[in-house]
């Protein structure tokens, strides 16, 4: 995927020049990214660490994230419970580790589904223009005119607290953002010479969208995706915090914060650790997205 996108500004022949060249180019790009985007690189490392933690969570977590240690309610961080325990005696560290799964699951599911649907809608809208574009864009306007979190709150409250409902709510608010970006790109591409050439030899609309549209707009989509990740994770936490997201006793970070908020004075570690985890992960996604954008911006490179 990345080879293609990095080639987006390059002449057509290069793409056909063989996989070897692609790989070499990719390696060069990676090096250049590390050198020019130090913050972005560190962010990427943080994201990768969190992903790794989520995958091997059962090996890292010392306890079952929902089992309650009745001998230790609200225990301060100690040798047994490195981040203390919550009001029901559950190990905060284990919950944090397993919670990363929920954050990432919701993030990945939402972003992937939104990309697919948003891109599809955006491409149709941008390529055909006219009345189709008009209708689609007004619908998108309508969705975007409502503050995202409020809309998500509304949808999640309507559907009831469950992880899949959180994903549905967040997909609905993310789709217009992708559709907007893709539409703009598609309109630009539609007017380009190579599309005109393609059209002149009788290529179908479907072929043009898939062969010329999609590969040439990967860069902005990827940047959007990495930023959307951060937004989605925060939104999941917010919904869970308000009691209409991930249902208890699942260790969602937002839910942990919500449970902990009553003990902010007496047991601050309950707020501190999930709060930190959430801030760091979201910041990493946002900074990585920024770095990627800067890196892929032809004017800056």
């Amino acid at each position, binding site marked *: 995927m990345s080879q293609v996108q990095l080639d987006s500004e390059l002449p057509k022949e290069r793409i056909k020049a063989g996989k070897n060249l692609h790989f070499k180019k990719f390696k060069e790009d990676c090096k250049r990214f590390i050198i020019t985007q130090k913050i972005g690189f560190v962010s990427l490392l943080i994201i990768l660490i969190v992903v790794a933690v989520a995958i091997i969570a059962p090996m890292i977590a010392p306890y079952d994230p929902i089992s309650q240690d009745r001998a230790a309610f609200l225990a301060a961080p100690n040798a047994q419970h490195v981040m203390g325990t919550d009001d029901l005696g559950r190990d905060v560290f284990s919950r944090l580790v397993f919670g990363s799964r929920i954050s990432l699951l919701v993030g990945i599911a939402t972003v992937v589904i939104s990309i697919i649907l948003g891109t599809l809608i955006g491409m149709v809208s941008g390529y055909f223009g006219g009345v189709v574009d008009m209708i689609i864009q007004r619908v998108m306007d309508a969705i975007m005119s409502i503050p995202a979190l409020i809309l998500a709150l509304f949808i999640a409250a309507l559907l009831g607290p469950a992880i899949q409902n959180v994903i549905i709510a967040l997909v609905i608010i993310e789709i217009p953002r992708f559709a907007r970006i893709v539409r703009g790109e598609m309109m630009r591409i539609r007017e380009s010479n190579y599309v005109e050439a393609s059209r002149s030899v009788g290529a179908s609309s479907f072929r043009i969208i898939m062969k010329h549209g999609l590969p040439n707009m990967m860069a902005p989509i990827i940047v959007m995706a990495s930023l959307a990740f951060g937004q989605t994770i*925060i939104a999941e936490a917010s919904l869970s915090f308000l*009691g209409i997201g991930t249902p208890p006793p699942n260790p969602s970070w937002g839910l942990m914060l919500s449970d902990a908020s009553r003990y902010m004075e007496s047991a601050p570690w309950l707020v501190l650790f999930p709060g930190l985890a959430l801030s760091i992960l979201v910041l990493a996604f946002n900074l990585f997205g920024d770095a990627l954008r800067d890196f892929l911006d032809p004017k800056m490179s």
Partner: protein
Amino acid sequence: MDKKLTSIVRLLILGLLIAAISACSSDTSSNEPGTESSEVASSEPKSGGTYTILSAADPDMLDPHRQSSIYTHMMAGLVYNKLVTYETGPDVEFTDYNVVPDLAESWEISEDGKVYTFHLREAYWHDKEPVNGRQVTAEDVVATMERIINLPGHQAALLSEVDNIEAKDPQTVVFTLKQPFAPFLNFMANHFMWILPKEAVDGQVDLATDAIGTGPFVLEKWEDNVQATYKKNPNYFEEGKPYLDEVIYKVVPEQGSRIAAFRTGQAEAIGSLSPEELAQLQKTNPDIAVFDALFPTQEQLYMNMEREPFTDLRVRKAISMAVDRKSMVEAIYGGGETSGPVNPSLGDWALPLEERETLQPFDPEEAKKLLAEAGYPNGFDTTMIVTNGYGEQLVRVAQWVAEDLRNIGINVEIEIVEYATYFSERWPNVDYDMGIGYQTYFQEPDEWLRTQLHTNGSRNWYNISDPELDKMLDEQRMILDVEERKQYVHEIQRYVLENLVNPVPLTTYYTKTPRQPYTRDVYPHASYGYGYLKNVWLDK
């Protein structure tokens, strides 16, 4: 780099959300102040002053017969009176249910227990259109009772045993019952029995938004979801009372704001607080008084008796035995006691604490054995509904119970249901495997037992059907001797804990209510209504 800024702003917003939610979280109980300790010596009461009550919510209407919400009925207590009411005072416990005169000065009960004759006192309606302060007559009482019977809702059931109501003369009302009915006087003291003027029953007063009664305070203005203002009733039938000039009932949805207002002396009552909130309040206001009282209801763990495996008594018993009630109430509510089929707030109608504990032991080993006997040596998977509409404490109770059940092999998946769906669909339609929830604040053992456990009970939302129990539940209603009936009610509760075990009573916690140090003669009661404010005065 504007995205960085955006992300920082987002984090800030989340932080604000945390602060906002932390405050309004633990509000399961409403404005239900605790028992007055008698240490405050009552000196000569002073008149004057405003008493401000801050409430989390407003009722959607003031009509005391159409609406069963606690908010409506707490407010109704300022304006209306009943024929009889529950005694309050320095020597009366929060949960003592002694029936005393209210609008009825006295009453007689016929030999056969079927005819109740109430003699009205000389009382006058509030001086508002269209009643204009005329005297209360027996006609008003008859009209009100007919309204209660004819409106849809739970309230009609309270008068289901009444055959005929008659105004014998302007000051005398006679109730004739179909058969002797022990709970009758208690039902007449129930919060649904507020007496209205005949004109209001006839539709000349918009009862949804206005109120004309005989109570200690006159409703001056009600602004929905903002504030209700009450002024002293100069013609109140108790000489010299009330002492307060004004009562203000203000809606402040956010718990943090309510506490802040109390802290700075802008409010006299803010309802009960969680142990953490109270501890923080006491740091800044060390001289406030705190009143402990039994919460007038309990969490109940209930099972669908038409779904496997809850049809098996051994399974239900195992579930009851698996729950560590004592540690739970301590950990989640900061103190309380093991409950029984009749809530302990009903005083000696409930089984003594010791018996409640011995009949409902915490014994996971025995529970596992029972499960094995019932054919589930490895437990089973099931679901449990709970609503977050009662506040987050109940959700924590659900998680606690789920963990206890997991320890004996029962895997419970918690399903959080939105309050309206929970209360109007899932629970009453018995659409669940297991569930956990609070019961209404019942004030009669008959309500706790018969409405929930009888095959035809109006709140039997568990598919319970036990002919022997039905017989006992019907019989206790006929026993007019209070002591004898108490013994029988205990007998029924023992039977329920041994042979039915559904709904499983969990715990009743102690509410902690802060009170301003200058408020005097505050003697609240577990029943609904702010009527006790007639005695209250401010020493400042």
